[in-house]
């Protein structure tokens, strides 16, 4: 490595050298520029490695050979070297990316770029205020020059506004430095920090001006209209530099100033950052132009970093880890996205659908979005985890809440954008994809994953990229070129092997969930063999990501791993759901509800941490003992709502019907039969550790009972009125999950048994029904039940699956659904709350309505003319159904096989309560008994006897044609008018339809509409007029002044 001064000297020298070259030697000029940047990048890399790995101590560089205050000194430590690396690598890659532009513009442009790097290096390295001013000025001039490089005509205006604003900042800075020097007698930053008491005695205004100048450079809301215009109109490669490199340099400048300021100014910084973060993300919601959206996102992310800078006092040792995680994630992602935006021809978000032509670019896009959002395994995830825990420990809950809210807004537009990319029509203009630009994007992608690994290593918790299931899921990205059947086989094999490996370590409860997830999941994968002639790009990585998350979730022992697994399964399932043909809005609603829920869980864990970075889940149990007041209640509430989002409890359920119904045939059973269990597992874990909790005297499990009961009613009732078969099943899931939540919330032994019974049953029959209905829909080309009818003879196996399924769901003996009902009655016998039961009782028989409708309108009644030649559903879709039929039968006969051990296991949590006795073939409770096998035999014997009798007396029966039915004086001839199917329960709608008003949907729609309208209204605030911007700036300065005066 070469001396630190080289960062300034070499680029300056190279810039001069360029000036001496002949104008026509463009290749040489370009070569010099690249070589300079490459050399400096390498140098920065060596320094960073030296500080990080080899343990070098930070060095001071005395420019004039004397220590300060007599000469300017520079400091090079880990932070500085990492930022230098960031600046130079961004510049280098942008320079490669800008090859054509630079060659065309000639050596002047190249030297401006080098000067910019030099100026940024100066800002990063210097410890002298006046020196800082000089480098800021240089940055401004160089940036202004580069903005003008753009082809966009608006760039001229934007550049001009930028220069004006920058001059205001420079003036503020200069005046501030002047007064500060007056007050302290030094312009050395460290010197001034030592004398900060002196400075603030009379020099408040002096510091305020310097502070404002640097803050304005960070584009805070509302004084950032100019910046957005710049982002929108500048060349994307340059926007990448502004966003990543200039942003990072300005942040370190602010950090240096805060060193002088002391703790009083920290909160102010955080508030400015927070407001910017919220406002930028809010405005982003209403944005359709890609570069402007990226601008908003940049502004927002830098606001977030400012927020973190202001929390220096509570972050302690984690400060660099958190700031670095968020800042680097932002820089890499934003640079990557800006570079991609240069490849996309159209400027609207939906034009990015062109990325679908290049799977690698698409993957890069997805990674950058995840990087921005702080999803695992990226650095933002680790950083946000620490940040949230620190905020919770310091009791800065308002900050925490608002930050998470703004993150959710950000997720809103980022995932919407992702949805556009995956689902919208391909634009007419293809991607402009020269190899050098693609390489640059790919390098950013590599950097993103490298950062993910590094942050995982640095994290005090575990490195997610060391988790085998996650690696297995990611491996499918590499395996994408393989044929689908092979990938399917690998997926099934992997899951079975993982189950066999983990099996010995599971407790009985985990065994039930693990069995459903891994073995159950591989059975559903059998259905994926159908249509495996196509490659199904993206399917396997997403599905395996979900399964990885699920299988990690059930074995997680501490809050960090639990939450990471939760996020992984959420993201994986989102990608899966998004694959459906019409699922774009539904997948968005799913991910937003899920992330909202996840943030609540995060906040809950952070509160429960009591200052610790993570807690073993078992420690949740001690929470009520350790803390006074309502803390335990709040933790319970946050976690419970988070988990209830996943089980689609009423109020939070609106994502489910669309997401499950619009998903692909083999995805619906995965996300319904398996994914919903994650929420139940979370609730089980929560109730098992925390037990009953109160909040302001309200028993929270009691509230949960009501939620479960109402979910059961609403889900069932809405299912009755669906015309779409998959939607019907989806609503029915809401009802079924309601039962399970109800069972858990009863907080007694049998209630939990019932919930587990529902977990198993729901997995089997809902997976089976989704597959049957999916198979039928594949053949008929519709999911609307009234368009079908009479398919029983054409699709007998699907019919049998549905028949067995509905008998099981309805709880009619002798199938396993009855077991759930029997345990339910035994459980409620010892329950203390009776009113919610009324609702559950009401919900019960309603299930018959939709179940009958499902089987009747599809398989019975009149066959339609266009369906007369249909075949049975494809083999691979029928096969798992038949396995499920066998499962249901076995589970109906010997429920003890699965439940005995869990019964004993649960027993330890409810000592002394009523339990079950599994002796022999009869299961007894203290109230009654249930003998599955005798029931099956008795019913079987009666049925067979009567059947044989009928066969005997009716042996001459003739099969008649479809329309041979008894009608008064007319003969029907059209199936459409004879098949009674549409609006099947019209009288029921008359009686109880008022209960199905979409109040919840309306609530959430109004809320999102309001946010969008607010965003649309407020963004008009940026008029594009330089004078308005000047007023914003002035107002901002005054407002901050008053705020700080008020706070001090």
């Amino acid at each position, binding site marked *: 490595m070469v001396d630190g001064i080289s960062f300034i000297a070499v680029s300056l020298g190279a810039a001069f050298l360029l000036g001496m070259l002949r104008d026509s030697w463009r290749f040489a000029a370009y070569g010099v520029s690249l070589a300079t940047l490459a050399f400096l990048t390498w140098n920065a890399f060596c320094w960073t490695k030296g500080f990080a790995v080899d343990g070098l101590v930070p060095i001071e560089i005395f420019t004039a050979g004397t220590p300060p205050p007599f000469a300017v000194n520079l400091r090079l430590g880990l932070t500085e070297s990492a930022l230098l690396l960031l600046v130079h690598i961004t510049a280098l890659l942008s320079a490669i990316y800008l090859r054509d532009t630079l060659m065309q513009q000639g050596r002047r442009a190249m030297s401006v770029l080098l000067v910019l790097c030099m100026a940024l290096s100066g800002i990063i390295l210097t410890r002298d205020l006046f020196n800082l001013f000089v480098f800021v000025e240089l940055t401004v001039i160089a940036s202004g020059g580069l903005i003008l490089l753009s082809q966009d005509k608006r760039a001229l205006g934007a550049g001009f506004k930028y220069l004006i604003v920058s001059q205001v900042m420079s003036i503020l800075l200069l005046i501030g430095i002047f007064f500060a020097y007056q007050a302290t007698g030094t312009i050395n930053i460290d010197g001034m920090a030592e004398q900060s008491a002196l400075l603030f005695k009379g020099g408040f205004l002096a510091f305020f001006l310097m502070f404002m100048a640097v803050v304005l450079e960070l584009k805070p809301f509302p004084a950032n209209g100019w910046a957005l215009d710049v982002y929108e109109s500048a060349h994307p490669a340059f926007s990448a530099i502004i966003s990543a490199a200039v942003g990072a340099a300005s942040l370190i400048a602010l950090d240096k100033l805060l060193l002088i300021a002391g703790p009083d100014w920290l909160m102010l910084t955080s508030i400015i950052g927070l407001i910017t973060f919220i406002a930028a993300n809010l405005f982003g919601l209403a944005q359709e132009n890609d570069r402007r959206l990226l601008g908003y996102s940049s502004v927002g992310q830098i606001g977030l970093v400012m927020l973190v800078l202001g929390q220096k006092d509570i972050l302690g040792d984690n400060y660099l880890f958190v700031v670095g995680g968020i800042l680097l994630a932002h820089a890499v992602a934003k640079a990557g996205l800006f570079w991609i935006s240069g490849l996309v021809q159209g400027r609207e978000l939906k034009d990015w659908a062109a990325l679908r032509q290049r799977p690698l670019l698409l993957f890069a896009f997805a990674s950058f979005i995840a990087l921005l959002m702080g999803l695992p395994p990226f650095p933002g995830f680790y950083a946000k985890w620490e940040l949230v825990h620190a905020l919770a420990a310091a009791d800065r809950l308002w900050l925490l809440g608002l930050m998470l809210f703004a993150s959710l807004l950000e997720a809103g537009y980022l995932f919407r954008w992702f949805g556009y990319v995956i689902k919208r029509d391909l634009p007419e203009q293809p991607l402009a994809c020269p190899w050098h630009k693609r390489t640059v994007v790919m390098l950013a992608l590599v950097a993103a994953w490298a950062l993910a690994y590094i942050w995982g290593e640095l994290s005090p918790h575990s490195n997610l990229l060391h988790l085998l299931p996650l690696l297995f899921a990611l491996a499918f990205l590499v395996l994408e070129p393989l044929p689908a059947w092979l990938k399917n086989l690998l997926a099934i094999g992997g899951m079975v092997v993982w189950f066999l490996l983990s099996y010995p370590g599971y407790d009985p409860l985990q065994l039930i969930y693990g069995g459903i997830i891994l073995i159950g999941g591989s059975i559903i994968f059998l259905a994926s063999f159908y249509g495996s002639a196509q490659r199904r790009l993206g399917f396997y990585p997403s599905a395996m990501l979900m399964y990885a998350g699920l299988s990690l979730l059930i074995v997680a022992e501490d809050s960090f791993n639990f939450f990471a697994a939760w996020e992984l399964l959420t993201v994986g399932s989102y990608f899966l759901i998004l694959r459906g043909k019409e699922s774009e809005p539904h997948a968005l609603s799913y991910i937003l509800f899920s992330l909202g829920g996840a943030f609540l869980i995060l906040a809950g864990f952070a509160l429960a941490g009591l200052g610790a970075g993570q807690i073993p889940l078992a420690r949740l149990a001690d929470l009520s003992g350790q803390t006074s007041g309502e803390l335990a209640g709040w933790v319970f509430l946050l976690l419970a709502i988070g988990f209830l989002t996943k089980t689609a409890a009423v109020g939070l359920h609106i994502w489910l019907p669309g997401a499950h119904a619009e998903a692909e045939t083999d995805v619906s059973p995965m996300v319904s039969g398996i994914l919903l269990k994650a929420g139940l597992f979370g609730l089980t874990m929560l109730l098992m550790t925390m037990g009953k909790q109160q909040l302001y005297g309200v028993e929270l499990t009691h509230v949960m009972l009501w939620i479960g009961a109402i979910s059961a009613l609403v889900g069932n009732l809405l299912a009755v009125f669906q015309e779409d078969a998959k939607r019907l099943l989806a609503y029915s899931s809401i009802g079924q999950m309601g039962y399970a939540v109800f069972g858990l919330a009863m907080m007694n032994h049998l209630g939990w048994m019932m919930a587990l019974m529902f977990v198993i049953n729901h997995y089997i029959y809902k997976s089976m029904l989704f597959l049957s209905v999916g198979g039928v829909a594949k053949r008929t080309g519709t999911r609307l039940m009234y368009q079908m009818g009479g398919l*029983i003879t054409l699709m007998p196996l699907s019919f049998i699956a549905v028949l067995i399924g509905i*008998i099981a769901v*309805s*709880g*009619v003996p002798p199938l396993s659904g*009855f077991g759930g009902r*029997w345990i339910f*009655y035994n459980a409620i*016998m010892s329950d203390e709350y*009776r*009113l919610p*039961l*009324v609702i559950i*009782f*009401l919900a019960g*028989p*309603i299930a*018959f*309505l939709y179940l*009958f409708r499902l089987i*009747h309108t599809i398989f*019975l*009644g*009149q066959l339609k003319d266009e369906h007369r030649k249909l075949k049975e559903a494809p083999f691979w879709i029928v096969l798992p159904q038949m396995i499920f039929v066998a499962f249901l039968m076995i589970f109906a006969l010997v429920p003890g096989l699965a439940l005995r051990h869990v019964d004993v296991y649960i027993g330890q949590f409810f000592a002394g309560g009523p339990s079950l006795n599994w002796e*022999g*073939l*009869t299961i007894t409770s203290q*109230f*009654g*008994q*249930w*003998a599955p096998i*005798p029931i099956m035999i*008795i*019913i079987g014997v*009666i*049925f067979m006897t*009567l*059947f044989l009798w009928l066969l005997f*007396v*009716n042996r*001459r*029966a*003739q*099969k008649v044609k479809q*329309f041979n*039915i*008894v*009608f*008064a004086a007319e003969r029907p001839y059209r199936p459409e008018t*004879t*098949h*009674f*199917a549409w609006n099947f*329960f019209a*009288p*029921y709608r*008359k*009686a*109880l339809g008022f209960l199905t008003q979409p109040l919840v949907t309306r609530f959430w729609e109004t809320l999102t509409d309001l946010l969008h309208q607010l965003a649309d209204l407020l963004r008009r605030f940026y008029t594009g007029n330089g004078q308005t911007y000047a007023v914003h700036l002035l107002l901002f300065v005054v407002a901050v002044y008053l705020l700080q005066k008020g706070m001090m």
Partner: protein
Amino acid sequence: MDFDWMKIPYSLLTLFIVVNYGMILNAFIQKIGARVGRRHGIPIWQNYADLIKNYSIRSSITHGVMFYLGPVFRLSGGVGLLLFVPTIYGSYMFSNMSFAGDLILALYFVFFGTLGMALGAAESGHPHAAIGITRGLSQVTAAELPFALAVFAVALQYQTLSVTDIVAAQQGSFLNWTLFTNPLAVTAAMLSFLGSMMRPPFDVVLAPQEIPIGPPTEYHSSYLALMQTNRAIFPIAKIVIYMNLFFGGAASWPVFFLKVFCIYMISVLVGVVFPRFRVEQSIRWFLIWAVPVGILAVVLV
């Protein structure tokens, strides 16, 4: 497992008695209804004659497998329901197959026949059948609710789900009957009972005027014979549950005959006086008048 094979002939004996009693009772009740309407009514052996006629009809058609199985489901439901509940209290001979399960089994098994029959009728492709089924299902969701609440109240009251134990708790004096110890539950249950007996004002399911006889429209000959047998068994099987839960059960056959008749007559008395409800009207009626009583019963028990 040690199964007492003698239970099979004993159960068949119960079945035999109940079928015959049901045949005669149905005709008798129909006669009462006719007399109220100033008509003469059918002879008391009419049901036997119908049964023989149906078995001997020569033309017989089928619409498919489910259609064929519908009556089998229906009758299995009736027979099973009867056999899963002890008929005569204290008698081993007439305790039937009640070892297999408790009250909950009986409650849910009620739907076995209904559902199977609905599936069979639906395969006939006749719209009247489907319309009748939607009406029946819609009505049953509201009608069953007070009964479920009453059953829960009774189970809570006696702290058991075993039918035999519930009957045992009511022995001694007629004042020990649930009718007197828990009148609210019995009121709710009896209101619900009206809804399940296919008599006015809740007989829109069969609706002989607009959708001639509803779900069974397409059934004839031996199918109808099976269903007719079920019509003799099923109401009695259901009444046996009511009798056991609320009216002290029956310790001997004469008491059984009397109690079943009296309970049946409740629905007849209401039925001959009131006109028919539409489906949504009956749903509202149950929710407004019967369910609150049931809720009170559950809360106050």
